[in-house]
């Protein structure tokens, strides 16, 4: 299953809804293109909704980290919402759960950008 991405405005936060697999190749490339595109549009508050992402490999993890760093370098924030169990477990064993801000409900996640 390939990766799909749609994004929607939520005030000054851009929410990106991903669905599918974030893996080496098209999945990772789409994630990179999406985040870089938002930064080019001066959108630096980004919430990635991963509710429908059921699989991510090391390439996808690397792309998440790359996006996180790129947004931070623009003084922005990239946060994660609705992790599936597999993605959550992977972020935990790689210790990235301590790096990313992870939320389980969207209103709280959106409010956190302005706190």
């Amino acid at each position: 299953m390939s990766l799909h991405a749609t994004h929607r405005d939520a005030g000054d936060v851009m929410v990106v809804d991903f669905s599918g697999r974030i893996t080496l190749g098209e999945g990772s490339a789409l994630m990179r293109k999406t985040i870089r595109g938002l930064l080019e549009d001066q959108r630096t508050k980004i919430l990635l909704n991963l509710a429908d992402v059921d699989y991510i490999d090391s390439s996808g993890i690397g792309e998440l980290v790359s996006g996180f760093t790129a947004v931070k370098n623009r003084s922005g924030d990239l946060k994660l919402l609705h992790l599936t169990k597999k993605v959550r477990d992977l972020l935990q064993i790689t210790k990235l759960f301590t790096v990313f801000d992870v939320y389980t409900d969207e209103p709280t996640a959106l409010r956190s950008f302005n706190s």
Partner: protein
Amino acid sequence: MAPDTKHLEVTLETQVESVNLAEEMCLRVAEAAGFGEDDCYRIGMSVREGVINAFHYGNQERPEKKIYLAVDLTSDKMIIHVLDEGTGFKLSDVPDPLAEENLLSTSGRGIFLMRAFMDEFDVLSGRTGGAEIVMSKKLPAPGSTPANGQGGQSATPQQEA
């Protein structure tokens, strides 16, 4: 090779599609061998990471080089070999992705994931001169519930960060 060992091998092109192909092939073998969903996920992920390693680091994404994937199904475990045509590497030279200074690295987690998800893992010097990843998982005990994984490090840590 023991007489009851089933052996399967395939030569893969150095291209992204080979990663999915290898994963799918090994998943079919794992399912047929009786592994549960969790273990199939771990085996599939490990094969992905092994072939990604061969594709990117071993063969440097050069299309004239090959990746050799082999699966042995013995009476007690599934053994997977991934061989590339690179120059090889030593496990001791691989940086720890959990070290503070490497946490934000965009690469270098594949070996860690294979070690975490499989029961046995090693990197040998292959017949091609490249690296040969050898990893295995014990077959589920007869009559065990196939839904949960058996053996290997749990993908879920004991304590949430």
